[in-house]
């Protein structure tokens, strides 16, 4: 019985492929690249009217979420943790989305009151 647990633990370790130096620098260049893209949009595409501000803002948010994914999954190692821990951390974050939806709706109402 104890032998079974031992091998199981060993297997866990083998598939537990962790952050290598190469992977760390890959993630760094992805983060840097996304930030550079954000700067190109903010300093060149929007001022030169290649894209409107209303289109730029959703792009910023999507790119930010990409950066957040890479930081949490790789730097914070969450991608390599047990699925139970991943859900324990990710599912409560969904409440934040709820608050965003509620307050976006509410602020639409506020701007009408202020006009």
């Amino acid at each position, binding site marked *: *019985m104890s032998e*079974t*647990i031992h091998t*199981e633990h060993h297997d*866990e370790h083998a598939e537990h492929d*962790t*952050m*290598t*130096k190469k992977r*760390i*620098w890959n993630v*760094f260049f992805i*983060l*840097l690249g996304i*930030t550079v893209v*954000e*700067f190109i*949009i*903010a*300093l060149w595409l929007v*001022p030169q009217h290649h894209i409107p501000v209303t289109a*730029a*803002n959703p792009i*910023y*948010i999507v*790119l*930010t979420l990409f*950066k*957040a994914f890479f*930081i*949490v999954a*790789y*730097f*914070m*190692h969450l991608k390599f*943790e*047990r699925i*139970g*821990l991943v859900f*324990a*951390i990710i599912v*409560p*974050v969904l*409440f*934040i989305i709820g*608050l*965003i939806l509620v*307050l*976006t709706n*509410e*602020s*639409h109402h*506020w*701007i009408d009151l*202020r*006009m």
Partner: protein
Amino acid sequence: MSTTVSQIDEVKTTPWAGGRSPFAVEYGKMMMWFFLLSDAFTFSSLLISYGALRFSSNAWPAPDLVFQSVPGMIEHGAPLVFVGLMTFILIMSSVTMVLAVEAGHRNAKKEVIGWMIGTIIGGLMFLGCQALEWSHLHSEGFWWGAIPNMETLKELFHGAPSTTYAHQFANLFFTITGFHGFHVFSGVVINIIITINVLMGTYEKRGSYLMVEKVGLYWHFVDLVWVFVFTFFYLV
């Protein structure tokens, strides 16, 4: 042996059957995750209230006009350059942190010390940049509950300036970046303590550099929050 194993013994080997952590992480690391989750809620409520106030306003100080100086070098016409530098410093210090964790897995004490010192320097550089940024805005007249005079305000809005929204901007900016900066500061202090422990060989004796991993989680979270602060204060 396998023929004599009863059903109940087989059930006991599943992760959620008890007797061991279903998450397969050490207690302190799990608690760090849950602390960071609660901290994520705090920062979200701050940033979402900022979003709601800004979304419901009809004028707001324009980021490309408010943040267009590099303190001590360029006074005007360099939007986002300084904050770009700050972002780069913080991402860079996140990389040195994860390299310290990686060295810790190999029990390479000297490498851990080197990368930890790099992380501390990055954190201190970021704090220095933020101090310059704050004093620049303060010299313009912004502070908690204080805004510049009307002439300066006219240069900071694309349309007609609004004193109400300038006030909201000032309060939210100093509260949110201040709360984030306080996290960076405490992160640097914790990093220094951990580095001293590494130097004294505490984790070498313990046989694992798990503490470096835990403080690393905190440090990456600080970087994560900055990614959002950067987007919603400086880009949008």
